[in-house]
Protein backbone atom coordinates (compact mmCIF):
# COMPACT_ATOMS: atom_id res chain seq x y z
CA UNK A 1 0.00 0.00 0.00
CA UNK A 2 1.53 3.29 -1.07
CA UNK A 3 2.03 5.94 1.64
CA UNK A 4 0.35 8.62 -0.32
CA UNK A 5 -2.80 6.56 -0.76
CA UNK A 6 -5.49 6.70 1.92
CA UNK A 7 -8.60 4.58 2.11
CA UNK A 8 -11.84 6.24 2.95
CA UNK A 9 -13.66 4.64 5.89
CA UNK A 10 -16.49 3.49 3.73
CA UNK A 11 -14.22 1.87 1.16
CA UNK A 12 -12.33 0.15 3.96
CA UNK A 13 -15.59 -1.17 5.36
CA UNK A 14 -16.69 -2.27 1.92
CA UNK A 15 -13.39 -4.12 1.48
CA UNK A 16 -13.76 -5.92 4.78
CA UNK A 17 -17.41 -6.74 4.05
CA UNK A 18 -16.46 -8.23 0.73
CA UNK A 19 -13.78 -10.40 2.33
CA UNK A 20 -16.23 -11.71 4.89
CA UNK A 21 -19.08 -12.28 2.48
CA UNK A 22 -16.81 -14.26 0.22
CA UNK A 23 -15.67 -16.60 2.94
CA UNK A 24 -17.71 -19.82 2.86
CA UNK A 25 -16.55 -20.70 6.34
CA UNK A 26 -18.57 -17.77 7.63
CA UNK A 27 -21.77 -18.67 5.78
CA UNK A 28 -24.50 -20.97 7.00
CA UNK A 29 -22.83 -21.82 10.30
CA UNK A 30 -24.27 -22.89 13.63
CA UNK A 31 -23.44 -20.86 16.75
CA UNK A 32 -24.29 -21.62 20.36
CA UNK A 33 -24.98 -18.49 22.40
CA UNK A 34 -27.08 -16.67 24.91
CA UNK A 35 -29.57 -13.99 23.90
CA UNK A 36 -29.48 -10.48 25.39
CA UNK A 37 -30.85 -7.06 24.42
CA UNK A 38 -33.68 -8.83 22.60
CA UNK A 39 -35.92 -6.44 20.71
CA UNK A 40 -38.66 -7.27 18.21
CA UNK A 41 -39.30 -4.43 15.83
CA UNK A 42 -42.91 -3.61 14.91
CA UNK A 43 -42.18 -4.69 11.35
CA UNK A 44 -41.32 -8.17 12.58
CA UNK A 45 -37.53 -8.18 12.48
CA UNK A 46 -35.72 -9.32 15.64
CA UNK A 47 -32.61 -7.53 16.89
CA UNK A 48 -30.51 -9.00 19.68
CA UNK A 49 -27.00 -9.67 20.92
CA UNK A 50 -25.48 -13.15 20.95
CA UNK A 51 -22.99 -13.54 23.73
CA UNK A 52 -21.02 -15.92 25.86
CA UNK A 53 -18.77 -15.28 28.87
CA UNK A 54 -16.06 -13.62 26.84
CA UNK A 55 -17.58 -11.98 23.75
CA UNK A 56 -20.65 -10.64 22.05
CA UNK A 57 -21.88 -10.05 18.51
CA UNK A 58 -24.76 -7.95 17.22
CA UNK A 59 -27.41 -10.13 15.49
CA UNK A 60 -30.52 -9.78 13.35
CA UNK A 61 -33.24 -12.29 12.53
CA UNK A 62 -35.49 -10.93 9.82
CA UNK A 63 -39.23 -11.46 9.86
CA UNK A 64 -39.10 -13.85 6.88
CA UNK A 65 -36.87 -16.17 8.92
CA UNK A 66 -38.42 -15.82 12.37
CA UNK A 67 -41.99 -16.39 11.24
CA UNK A 68 -41.60 -20.15 11.64
CA UNK A 69 -40.05 -20.13 15.12
CA UNK A 70 -41.82 -22.51 17.45
CA UNK A 71 -40.81 -20.49 20.54
CA UNK A 72 -40.33 -16.86 21.48
CA UNK A 73 -36.70 -15.94 22.14
CA UNK A 74 -36.05 -14.25 25.47
CA UNK A 75 -33.13 -12.55 27.11
CA UNK A 76 -30.91 -15.04 28.86
CA UNK A 77 -32.13 -17.93 26.72
CA UNK A 78 -29.52 -20.36 25.44
CA UNK A 79 -30.00 -20.93 21.77
CA UNK A 80 -28.48 -22.52 18.71
CA UNK A 81 -28.54 -20.24 15.71
CA UNK A 82 -27.74 -20.87 12.08
CA UNK A 83 -26.86 -18.02 9.78
CA UNK A 84 -24.28 -15.92 7.94
CA UNK A 85 -21.66 -13.42 9.11
CA UNK A 86 -21.63 -10.06 7.35
CA UNK A 87 -20.84 -6.39 7.97
CA UNK A 88 -23.31 -3.62 8.71
CA UNK A 89 -21.62 -0.84 6.77
CA UNK A 90 -23.04 2.31 8.47
CA UNK A 91 -21.48 1.18 11.78
CA UNK A 92 -18.52 -0.69 10.32
CA UNK A 93 -19.63 -3.49 12.57
CA UNK A 94 -19.72 -7.19 11.86
CA UNK A 95 -23.09 -8.88 12.53
CA UNK A 96 -24.61 -12.29 12.58
CA UNK A 97 -27.68 -12.71 10.35
CA UNK A 98 -29.75 -15.50 11.88
CA UNK A 99 -31.81 -17.75 9.59
CA UNK A 100 -32.79 -20.47 12.00
CA UNK A 101 -32.95 -20.67 15.78
CA UNK A 102 -33.53 -23.56 18.19
CA UNK A 103 -33.48 -23.53 21.97
CA UNK A 104 -30.23 -25.07 23.19
CA UNK A 105 -30.15 -28.14 25.35
CA UNK A 106 -30.66 -30.49 22.50
CA UNK A 107 -28.20 -28.87 20.22
CA UNK A 108 -26.70 -32.18 19.18
CA UNK A 109 -30.14 -33.52 18.43
CA UNK A 110 -30.80 -30.70 16.04
CA UNK A 111 -27.62 -31.25 14.20
CA UNK A 112 -28.40 -34.94 13.99
CA UNK A 113 -31.89 -34.12 12.77
CA UNK A 114 -30.61 -31.79 10.07
CA UNK A 115 -27.98 -34.25 8.96
CA UNK A 116 -30.34 -37.20 8.80
CA UNK A 117 -32.96 -35.16 7.01
CA UNK A 118 -30.44 -34.15 4.38
CA UNK A 119 -29.15 -37.68 3.99
CA UNK A 120 -32.56 -39.28 3.58
CA UNK A 121 -33.73 -36.52 1.28
CA UNK A 122 -30.70 -37.21 -0.88
CA UNK A 123 -31.58 -40.90 -0.87
CA UNK A 124 -34.98 -39.94 -2.25
CA UNK A 125 -36.90 -41.29 0.71
CA UNK A 126 -39.10 -38.21 0.85
CA UNK A 127 -39.90 -38.14 -2.84
CA UNK A 128 -43.54 -37.65 -3.69
CA UNK A 129 -43.43 -40.36 -6.36
CA UNK A 130 -42.70 -42.90 -3.64
CA UNK A 131 -45.81 -42.03 -1.67
CA UNK A 132 -48.44 -44.74 -1.80
CA UNK A 133 -52.17 -44.15 -2.00
CA UNK A 134 -54.10 -44.73 1.21
CA UNK A 135 -56.99 -47.13 0.40
CA UNK A 136 -60.46 -45.58 0.45
CA UNK A 137 -62.14 -48.20 2.60
CA UNK A 138 -59.58 -49.99 4.77
CA UNK A 139 -60.83 -53.10 6.54
CA UNK A 140 -58.05 -53.42 9.02
CA UNK A 141 -55.79 -50.78 10.51
CA UNK A 142 -52.62 -51.16 12.51
CA UNK A 143 -51.98 -48.47 15.11
CA UNK A 144 -48.47 -48.13 16.45
CA UNK A 145 -48.44 -45.88 19.48
CA UNK A 146 -48.46 -45.82 23.22
CA UNK A 147 -51.20 -47.85 24.86
CA UNK A 148 -51.98 -44.96 27.11
CA UNK A 149 -52.31 -41.31 26.29
CA UNK A 150 -54.33 -38.95 24.19
CA UNK A 151 -53.00 -40.19 20.85
CA UNK A 152 -54.39 -43.71 21.00
CA UNK A 153 -57.68 -42.44 22.40
CA UNK A 154 -58.05 -39.81 19.66
CA UNK A 155 -57.18 -42.31 16.94
CA UNK A 156 -59.49 -45.08 18.18
CA UNK A 157 -62.41 -42.73 18.89
CA UNK A 158 -62.16 -41.05 15.54
CA UNK A 159 -61.81 -44.31 13.63
CA UNK A 160 -64.84 -45.82 15.38
CA UNK A 161 -66.94 -42.73 14.97
CA UNK A 162 -66.28 -42.43 11.28
CA UNK A 163 -65.99 -46.03 10.20
CA UNK A 164 -67.12 -48.44 12.92
CA UNK A 165 -66.64 -51.57 10.83
CA UNK A 166 -62.90 -51.13 10.60
CA UNK A 167 -60.83 -53.53 12.63
CA UNK A 168 -58.25 -51.81 14.80
CA UNK A 169 -55.15 -53.57 15.98
CA UNK A 170 -53.00 -51.75 18.48
CA UNK A 171 -49.29 -52.30 18.67
CA UNK A 172 -48.46 -50.76 22.04
CA UNK A 173 -45.01 -49.21 22.08
CA UNK A 174 -42.94 -46.89 24.15
CA UNK A 175 -42.99 -43.60 22.29
CA UNK A 176 -40.27 -41.76 24.19
CA UNK A 177 -37.10 -42.39 26.06
CA UNK A 178 -34.58 -45.19 25.85
CA UNK A 179 -35.86 -48.17 23.91
CA UNK A 180 -38.67 -46.25 22.22
CA UNK A 181 -37.10 -46.37 18.79
CA UNK A 182 -36.34 -50.13 18.79
CA UNK A 183 -39.86 -50.79 20.10
CA UNK A 184 -41.39 -48.74 17.30
CA UNK A 185 -39.20 -50.49 14.70
CA UNK A 186 -40.17 -53.90 16.11
CA UNK A 187 -43.89 -53.04 16.06
CA UNK A 188 -43.80 -51.73 12.50
CA UNK A 189 -42.07 -54.90 11.26
CA UNK A 190 -44.41 -57.10 13.27
CA UNK A 191 -47.46 -55.40 11.78
CA UNK A 192 -46.01 -55.59 8.29
CA UNK A 193 -45.29 -59.31 8.71
CA UNK A 194 -48.88 -60.07 9.70
CA UNK A 195 -50.00 -59.09 6.18
CA UNK A 196 -53.53 -58.28 7.19
CA UNK A 197 -53.50 -54.50 7.44
CA UNK A 198 -54.56 -52.03 4.78
CA UNK A 199 -53.15 -48.99 6.56
CA UNK A 200 -50.79 -48.27 9.41
CA UNK A 201 -51.00 -45.25 11.68
CA UNK A 202 -48.02 -44.50 13.89
CA UNK A 203 -47.37 -41.61 16.19
CA UNK A 204 -47.84 -39.99 19.54
CA UNK A 205 -49.16 -36.81 21.05
CA UNK A 206 -47.32 -33.51 21.21
CA UNK A 207 -44.21 -33.01 23.26
CA UNK A 208 -40.75 -31.53 23.39
CA UNK A 209 -38.17 -32.39 20.82
CA UNK A 210 -36.61 -34.89 23.15
CA UNK A 211 -39.94 -36.54 23.71
CA UNK A 212 -40.58 -36.80 19.98
CA UNK A 213 -37.04 -37.90 19.31
CA UNK A 214 -37.70 -41.56 18.64
CA UNK A 215 -39.48 -40.51 15.46
CA UNK A 216 -36.32 -38.78 14.27
CA UNK A 217 -34.21 -41.93 14.59
CA UNK A 218 -32.81 -43.41 11.43
CA UNK A 219 -33.88 -46.93 12.41
CA UNK A 220 -37.51 -45.83 12.68
CA UNK A 221 -37.31 -43.95 9.37
CA UNK A 222 -35.88 -47.08 7.79
CA UNK A 223 -38.63 -49.33 9.19
CA UNK A 224 -41.29 -46.94 7.85
CA UNK A 225 -39.60 -46.66 4.48
CA UNK A 226 -39.44 -50.44 4.06
CA UNK A 227 -42.91 -51.10 5.40
CA UNK A 228 -45.15 -52.61 2.71
CA UNK A 229 -48.32 -51.14 4.23
CA UNK A 230 -49.25 -47.54 3.38
CA UNK A 231 -48.33 -45.44 6.42
CA UNK A 232 -49.81 -42.37 8.03
CA UNK A 233 -47.70 -40.46 10.51
CA UNK A 234 -49.25 -38.61 13.42
CA UNK A 235 -46.43 -37.31 15.51
CA UNK A 236 -47.02 -34.45 17.91
CA UNK A 237 -48.80 -31.28 16.92
CA UNK A 238 -48.98 -29.51 13.66
CA UNK A 239 -45.73 -27.62 14.24
CA UNK A 240 -43.68 -30.67 15.16
CA UNK A 241 -42.21 -32.16 12.03
CA UNK A 242 -40.17 -35.32 12.49
CA UNK A 243 -38.15 -37.40 10.06
CA UNK A 244 -40.87 -40.05 10.25
CA UNK A 245 -43.37 -37.50 8.96
CA UNK A 246 -41.27 -37.02 5.87
CA UNK A 247 -40.85 -40.74 5.22
CA UNK A 248 -44.47 -41.73 5.79
CA UNK A 249 -46.80 -41.95 2.81
CA UNK A 250 -49.08 -39.38 4.38
CA UNK A 251 -48.43 -36.92 7.17
CA UNK A 252 -51.25 -36.01 9.49
CA UNK A 253 -50.89 -32.93 11.66
CA UNK A 254 -52.44 -34.69 14.68
CA UNK A 255 -53.48 -38.23 15.69
CA UNK A 256 -57.15 -37.30 15.17
CA UNK A 257 -56.37 -36.05 11.70
CA UNK A 258 -54.51 -39.30 11.00
CA UNK A 259 -57.64 -41.29 11.83
CA UNK A 260 -59.70 -38.99 9.63
CA UNK A 261 -57.32 -39.48 6.75
CA UNK A 262 -57.28 -43.25 7.27
CA UNK A 263 -61.01 -43.95 6.96
CA UNK A 264 -64.01 -42.42 5.25
CA UNK A 265 -67.01 -41.24 7.22
CA UNK A 266 -69.62 -44.00 7.27
CA UNK A 267 -72.40 -41.45 7.11
CA UNK A 268 -70.95 -40.05 3.93
CA UNK A 269 -70.34 -43.46 2.46
CA UNK A 270 -73.83 -44.57 3.40
CA UNK A 271 -75.25 -41.43 1.85
CA UNK A 272 -73.32 -42.14 -1.29
CA UNK A 273 -74.52 -45.76 -1.30
CA UNK A 274 -78.13 -44.64 -0.87
CA UNK A 275 -77.66 -42.13 -3.63
CA UNK A 276 -76.27 -44.84 -5.91
CA UNK A 277 -79.15 -47.13 -4.98
CA UNK A 278 -81.65 -44.43 -5.83
CA UNK A 279 -79.95 -43.86 -9.12
CA UNK A 280 -80.04 -47.59 -9.74
CA UNK A 281 -83.79 -47.69 -9.14
CA UNK A 282 -84.34 -44.63 -11.23
CA UNK A 283 -82.29 -45.95 -14.13
CA UNK A 284 -84.16 -49.26 -14.20
CA UNK A 285 -87.53 -47.60 -13.70
CA UNK A 286 -86.79 -45.30 -16.58
CA UNK A 287 -85.69 -48.20 -18.69
CA UNK A 288 -88.85 -50.17 -17.94
CA UNK A 289 -91.06 -47.14 -18.48
CA UNK A 290 -89.38 -46.46 -21.75
CA UNK A 291 -89.76 -50.04 -22.94
CA UNK A 292 -93.39 -50.04 -21.80
CA UNK A 293 -94.02 -46.92 -23.77
CA UNK A 294 -92.40 -48.43 -26.78
CA UNK A 295 -94.46 -51.57 -26.43
CA UNK A 296 -97.65 -49.52 -25.95
CA UNK A 297 -96.86 -47.47 -28.93
CA UNK A 298 -96.29 -50.54 -31.04
CA UNK A 299 -99.44 -52.27 -29.79
CA UNK A 300 -101.49 -49.23 -30.50
CA UNK A 301 -100.02 -48.83 -33.89
CA UNK A 302 -102.37 -48.79 -36.86
CA UNK A 303 -101.06 -51.99 -38.34
CA UNK A 304 -101.58 -53.83 -35.09
CA UNK A 305 -105.16 -52.69 -34.62
CA UNK A 306 -106.46 -52.95 -38.15
CA UNK A 307 -104.63 -55.65 -40.04
CA UNK A 308 -107.55 -55.89 -42.54
CA UNK A 309 -107.23 -52.23 -43.27
CA UNK A 310 -103.65 -52.80 -43.94
CA UNK A 311 -104.74 -55.40 -46.52
CA UNK A 312 -107.31 -53.01 -47.93
CA UNK A 313 -104.72 -50.45 -48.21
CA UNK A 314 -102.53 -52.88 -50.06
CA UNK A 315 -105.46 -53.72 -52.36
CA UNK A 316 -105.94 -50.08 -53.04
CA UNK A 317 -102.33 -49.69 -53.68
CA UNK A 318 -102.41 -52.59 -56.11
CA UNK A 319 -105.36 -51.06 -57.93
CA UNK A 320 -103.70 -47.76 -58.07
CA UNK A 321 -100.59 -49.31 -59.41
CA UNK A 322 -102.46 -51.35 -62.01
CA UNK A 323 -104.29 -48.22 -63.10
CA UNK A 324 -101.07 -46.42 -63.31
CA UNK A 325 -99.59 -49.19 -65.38
CA UNK A 326 -102.49 -49.01 -67.81
CA UNK A 327 -102.38 -45.28 -67.99
CA UNK A 328 -98.72 -45.26 -68.48
CA UNK A 329 -98.92 -47.85 -71.24
CA UNK A 330 -101.61 -45.86 -72.95
CA UNK A 331 -99.73 -42.72 -72.59
CA UNK A 332 -96.71 -44.40 -74.00
CA UNK A 333 -98.76 -45.67 -77.05
CA UNK A 334 -100.17 -42.22 -77.59
CA UNK A 335 -96.78 -40.76 -77.42
CA UNK A 336 -95.49 -43.23 -79.98
CA UNK A 337 -98.46 -42.50 -82.25
CA UNK A 338 -97.80 -38.78 -82.05
CA UNK A 339 -94.22 -39.40 -82.85
CA UNK A 340 -95.27 -41.47 -85.86
CA UNK A 341 -97.63 -38.77 -87.07
CA UNK A 342 -95.04 -36.20 -86.69
CA UNK A 343 -92.70 -38.30 -88.77
CA UNK A 344 -95.36 -38.79 -91.48
CA UNK A 345 -95.94 -35.08 -91.50
CA UNK A 346 -92.28 -34.51 -91.90
CA UNK A 347 -92.15 -37.11 -94.66
CA UNK A 348 -95.07 -35.45 -96.41
CA UNK A 349 -93.38 -32.17 -96.24
CA UNK A 350 -90.61 -33.79 -98.18
CA UNK A 351 -93.11 -34.94 -100.98
CA UNK A 352 -92.09 -33.65 -104.58
CA UNK A 353 -95.61 -32.38 -105.50
CA UNK A 354 -94.39 -28.88 -105.15
CA UNK A 355 -91.57 -29.56 -107.54
CA UNK A 356 -94.09 -31.20 -109.84
CA UNK A 357 -96.35 -28.21 -109.64
CA UNK A 358 -93.39 -25.96 -110.18
CA UNK A 359 -92.36 -28.09 -113.12
CA UNK A 360 -95.89 -27.99 -114.49
CA UNK A 361 -95.95 -24.29 -114.16
CA UNK A 362 -92.67 -24.00 -115.91
CA UNK A 363 -93.83 -26.38 -118.55
CA UNK A 364 -96.93 -24.20 -119.12
CA UNK A 365 -94.75 -21.17 -119.39
CA UNK A 366 -92.43 -22.87 -121.83
CA UNK A 367 -95.42 -24.19 -123.74
CA UNK A 368 -96.86 -20.78 -123.90
CA UNK A 369 -93.59 -19.39 -125.11
CA UNK A 370 -93.40 -22.18 -127.59
CA UNK A 371 -96.89 -21.55 -128.88
CA UNK A 372 -96.23 -17.90 -129.02
CA UNK A 373 -92.98 -18.43 -130.82
CA UNK A 374 -94.60 -20.95 -133.14
CA UNK A 375 -97.42 -18.54 -133.83
CA UNK A 376 -94.96 -15.89 -134.64
CA UNK A 377 -93.04 -18.24 -136.78
CA UNK A 378 -96.26 -19.30 -138.51
CA UNK A 379 -97.19 -15.72 -139.13
CA UNK A 380 -93.78 -15.10 -140.55
CA UNK A 381 -94.13 -18.14 -142.78
CA UNK A 382 -97.62 -17.09 -143.67
CA UNK A 383 -96.56 -13.68 -144.78
CA UNK A 384 -93.63 -15.10 -146.60
CA UNK A 385 -95.93 -17.63 -148.11
CA UNK A 386 -98.36 -14.97 -149.06
CA UNK A 387 -95.59 -13.04 -150.64
CA UNK A 388 -94.41 -16.06 -152.45
CA UNK A 389 -97.92 -16.93 -153.49
CA UNK A 390 -98.47 -13.50 -154.85
CA UNK A 391 -95.14 -13.73 -156.56
CA UNK A 392 -96.06 -17.11 -157.73
CA UNK A 393 -99.32 -15.90 -158.81
CA UNK A 394 -97.54 -13.33 -160.74
CA UNK A 395 -95.43 -16.01 -162.32
CA UNK A 396 -98.20 -18.52 -162.67
CA UNK A 397 -98.14 -20.30 -166.00
CA UNK A 398 -101.87 -20.05 -165.98
CA UNK A 399 -101.54 -16.37 -166.46
CA UNK A 400 -99.13 -17.08 -169.26
CA UNK A 401 -101.54 -19.59 -170.59
CA UNK A 402 -104.15 -16.88 -170.50
CA UNK A 403 -102.06 -15.34 -173.08
CA UNK A 404 -102.23 -18.51 -175.17
CA UNK A 405 -99.40 -20.66 -173.94
CA UNK A 406 -99.96 -24.35 -173.25
CA UNK A 407 -98.23 -27.07 -171.37
CA UNK A 408 -97.40 -30.52 -172.72
CA UNK A 409 -97.20 -33.47 -170.35
CA UNK A 410 -96.01 -36.94 -171.04
CA UNK A 411 -98.04 -39.92 -170.25
CA UNK A 412 -96.63 -39.86 -166.83
CA UNK A 413 -97.74 -36.29 -166.23
CA UNK A 414 -94.17 -35.07 -166.53
CA UNK A 415 -93.91 -31.69 -168.21
CA UNK A 416 -92.25 -31.86 -171.54
CA UNK A 417 -89.74 -29.18 -171.75
CA UNK A 418 -87.59 -30.51 -174.65
CA UNK A 419 -88.33 -32.36 -177.82
CA UNK A 420 -85.72 -34.88 -177.00
CA UNK A 421 -87.94 -36.52 -174.44
CA UNK A 422 -90.67 -37.26 -176.92
CA UNK A 423 -90.81 -39.84 -179.49
CA UNK A 424 -93.03 -40.20 -182.47
CA UNK A 425 -96.16 -42.00 -181.55
CA UNK A 426 -96.11 -40.91 -177.85
CA UNK A 427 -99.34 -39.90 -176.33
CA UNK A 428 -99.07 -36.48 -174.76
CA UNK A 429 -101.53 -34.19 -172.95
CA UNK A 430 -101.81 -30.56 -173.83
CA UNK A 431 -103.10 -28.31 -171.17
CA UNK A 432 -104.62 -25.01 -171.89
CA UNK A 433 -106.05 -22.25 -169.86
CA UNK A 434 -109.43 -23.72 -169.57
CA UNK A 435 -108.78 -27.54 -170.01
CA UNK A 436 -106.69 -30.09 -171.88
CA UNK A 437 -106.74 -32.47 -174.75
CA UNK A 438 -104.71 -35.56 -175.66
CA UNK A 439 -102.57 -35.76 -178.76
CA UNK A 440 -100.29 -38.23 -180.54
CA UNK A 441 -96.85 -37.10 -181.68
CA UNK A 442 -96.60 -37.31 -185.39
CA UNK A 443 -93.23 -35.83 -185.92
CA UNK A 444 -90.33 -34.27 -183.92
CA UNK A 445 -88.30 -31.34 -185.07
CA UNK A 446 -85.14 -30.25 -183.42
CA UNK A 447 -84.17 -26.68 -183.45
CA UNK A 448 -80.52 -25.63 -183.25
CA UNK A 449 -80.70 -22.77 -180.97
CA UNK A 450 -82.03 -24.84 -178.14
CA UNK A 451 -80.86 -23.66 -174.66
CA UNK A 452 -79.98 -27.16 -173.70
CA UNK A 453 -77.25 -27.38 -176.23
Amino acid at each position, binding site marked *: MANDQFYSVSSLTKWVKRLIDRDDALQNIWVRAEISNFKKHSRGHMYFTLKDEKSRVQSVMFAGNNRHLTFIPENGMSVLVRGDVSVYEPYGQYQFYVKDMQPDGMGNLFLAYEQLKKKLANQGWFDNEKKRQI*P*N*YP*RSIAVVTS*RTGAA*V*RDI*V*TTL*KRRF*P*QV*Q*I*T*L*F*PVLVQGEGAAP*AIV*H*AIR*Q*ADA*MKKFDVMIFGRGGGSIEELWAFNEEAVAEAIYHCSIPTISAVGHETDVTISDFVADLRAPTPTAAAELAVPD*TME*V*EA*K*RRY*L*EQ*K*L*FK*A*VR*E*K*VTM*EKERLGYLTKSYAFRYPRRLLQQKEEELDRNTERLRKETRRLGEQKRLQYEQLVKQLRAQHPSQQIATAYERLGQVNHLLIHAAGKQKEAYQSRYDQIVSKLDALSPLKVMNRGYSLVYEEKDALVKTVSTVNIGDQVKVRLQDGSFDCQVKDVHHERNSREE
Partner: protein
Amino acid sequence: MENKEETLSFEEAMNKLESVVEKLEEGDVPLEKAIAMFQEGMELSKQCHNKLQAVEKQMDEIVKDDGEVELTNLQEESSE
Protein backbone atom coordinates in the same frame (compact mmCIF):
# COMPACT_ATOMS: atom_id res chain seq x y z
CA MET B 1 -73.88 -64.60 -3.53
CA GLU B 2 -72.53 -65.56 -0.15
CA ASN B 3 -69.32 -66.41 -1.83
CA LYS B 4 -69.15 -63.12 -3.60
CA GLU B 5 -69.71 -61.26 -0.40
CA GLU B 6 -66.73 -63.01 1.03
CA THR B 7 -64.37 -62.14 -1.78
CA LEU B 8 -65.52 -58.64 -2.70
CA SER B 9 -64.07 -55.88 -0.55
CA PHE B 10 -66.21 -52.94 0.39
CA GLU B 11 -64.23 -50.73 -1.96
CA GLU B 12 -64.63 -53.18 -4.83
CA ALA B 13 -68.35 -53.43 -4.13
CA MET B 14 -68.76 -49.64 -4.08
CA ASN B 15 -66.75 -49.24 -7.27
CA LYS B 16 -68.76 -51.96 -8.95
CA LEU B 17 -72.01 -50.42 -7.77
CA GLU B 18 -70.92 -47.09 -9.21
CA SER B 19 -70.04 -48.58 -12.56
CA VAL B 20 -73.33 -50.52 -12.71
CA VAL B 21 -75.26 -47.32 -12.07
CA GLU B 22 -73.23 -45.49 -14.67
CA LYS B 23 -73.84 -48.17 -17.30
CA LEU B 24 -77.56 -48.27 -16.54
CA GLU B 25 -77.79 -44.53 -16.74
CA GLU B 26 -76.16 -44.52 -20.12
CA GLY B 27 -79.29 -46.34 -21.17
CA ASP B 28 -78.24 -48.52 -24.10
CA VAL B 29 -78.36 -51.73 -22.11
CA PRO B 30 -80.88 -54.32 -23.41
CA LEU B 31 -83.79 -54.79 -21.02
CA GLU B 32 -82.92 -58.29 -19.80
CA LYS B 33 -79.40 -57.20 -19.13
CA ALA B 34 -80.60 -54.02 -17.46
CA ILE B 35 -82.73 -56.08 -15.07
CA ALA B 36 -79.82 -58.40 -14.35
CA MET B 37 -77.60 -55.40 -13.77
CA PHE B 38 -80.19 -53.85 -11.52
CA GLN B 39 -80.32 -57.03 -9.46
CA GLU B 40 -76.57 -57.07 -9.30
CA GLY B 41 -76.55 -53.42 -8.29
CA MET B 42 -79.11 -53.99 -5.57
CA GLU B 43 -77.11 -56.94 -4.32
CA LEU B 44 -73.97 -54.80 -4.25
CA SER B 45 -75.83 -52.01 -2.50
CA LYS B 46 -77.06 -54.50 0.07
CA GLN B 47 -73.55 -55.80 0.61
CA CYS B 48 -72.24 -52.29 1.07
CA HIS B 49 -75.07 -51.45 3.39
CA ASN B 50 -74.49 -54.57 5.45
CA LYS B 51 -70.81 -53.90 5.65
CA LEU B 52 -71.48 -50.36 6.73
CA GLN B 53 -74.26 -51.09 9.17
CA ALA B 54 -73.40 -54.42 10.63
CA VAL B 55 -71.02 -53.18 13.25
CA GLU B 56 -70.52 -56.68 14.45
CA LYS B 57 -68.92 -55.50 17.60
CA GLN B 58 -65.72 -56.42 15.95
CA MET B 59 -63.20 -56.84 18.69
CA ASP B 60 -60.09 -54.75 18.57
CA GLU B 61 -56.76 -56.39 19.04
CA ILE B 62 -53.67 -55.62 20.98
CA VAL B 63 -50.51 -57.25 19.67
CA LYS B 64 -47.77 -57.52 22.17
CA ASP B 65 -44.02 -57.56 21.69
CA ASP B 66 -43.91 -61.30 21.59
CA GLY B 67 -46.70 -61.38 19.01
CA GLU B 68 -49.34 -62.50 21.45
CA VAL B 69 -52.75 -61.13 20.47
CA GLU B 70 -55.18 -59.91 23.08
CA LEU B 71 -58.80 -59.12 22.14
CA THR B 72 -60.31 -56.04 23.71
CA ASN B 73 -62.45 -53.01 23.04
CA LEU B 74 -60.02 -50.18 22.64
CA GLN B 75 -62.66 -47.50 22.82
CA GLU B 76 -64.06 -48.64 26.13
CA GLU B 77 -60.60 -49.21 27.39
CA SER B 78 -59.40 -45.75 26.46
CA SER B 79 -62.46 -43.99 27.76
CA GLU B 80 -61.96 -45.44 31.19
